[in-house]
């Protein structure tokens, strides 16, 4: 019984992560031009999104096809070129809309779940 609830919540968590990936990837590019590994490090540092590394490039590829990001190969000192990504104008607009929605949405949900965890625990998680 406990096992099945565990699996259920894992699936749910994975879905939430998956749904937030594009937001996280676009956000990492808000201020900087980054290449793949840098984006990955930014995500690993802050988000706990737990992403198969190949999938990052798949999503970047899709975002580029949708003209939300653009990219360019740059020769690096390391000897092999790196592919740098940055937000296009429509990417910035889209990201701003996504971020606004996310902040509103998560604030509402936090308010909803606060009674479950208590104000203290919620505050702790935020930190």
């Amino acid at each position, binding site marked *: 019984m406990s096992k099945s609830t565990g699996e259920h919540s894992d699936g749910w968590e994975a879905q939430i992560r998956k749904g937030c990936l594009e937001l996280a990837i676009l956000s990492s590019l808000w201020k900087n031009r980054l290449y793949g590994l840098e984006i990955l490090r930014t995500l690993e540092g802050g988000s706990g999104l737990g992403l198969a590394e190949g999938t990052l490039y798949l999503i970047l590829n899709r975002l580029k096809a949708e003209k939300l990001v653009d990219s360019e190969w740059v020769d690096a000192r390391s000897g092999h070129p790196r592919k740098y990504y940055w937000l296009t104008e429509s990417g910035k607009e889209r990201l701003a*809309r996504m971020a606004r929605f996310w902040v509103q949405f998560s604030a509402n949900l936090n308010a909803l779940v606060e009674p479950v965890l208590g104000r203290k625990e919620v505050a702790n998680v935020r930190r």
Partner: protein
Amino acid sequence: MSADNAGGSIKQYLVRLRKALGDVPSTERDEIVEEIRSHILERIEAQEPATEQVVNEILRAVGDPKELASQYKTEALLRRARTSQSPLLLLRTTLRWAMSGLAGVIAFLVTAVGYGCAAVCYLCALLKPVFPARIGLWLGPEHTMTMGYWNGRISATEVYGIAVRPPASFALGTLSATEGPVRELLGPWLFPVTLLFGVVFLMATTRFARWFIGKFGQRRSRRSLG
């Protein structure tokens, strides 16, 4: 473990990836492989010395090349299909998409049935001169109406094609065998009617498939945010 071995397994990984990418257009394929290669090399540089174990872990983190390639292929197909007129490409795309989720299954089923109906219409027009007494729009018992091929029997009558029995039965193939006579309704009107319906089914299905792929094919849930 030598650097040669490490280089060997990376090379092998990239060869498998390239091979698995199959019919992705070659410029896109080169780009994908080159980017993954660059990623692997970056990872290795960050973790010198590159022992076999380190390299294998890095490759595992990137993901199984077949699985990764399959995701790229699905996306490339979906992108192409969104603007395609080709029933074959749309069917192939939705079939591949069907492997990865419910939306794909729905897309494939509707597309397959739609094109199936178009095919039946064209086949009827094509085969009418060959089997003039067997091809037609057949009215059977219980208001069963079937566009297609009648097996010619009075008992154990079957008609294969697009079958409709009001109010709710539809079959691409045959509804269960019926007893009793069937009557042909269209006569010489069969040609214009089948050709017209063929075109309608074909166009409607293509439009549906492209619309559905555009709307749900690339997790475009963001749209609802605007």
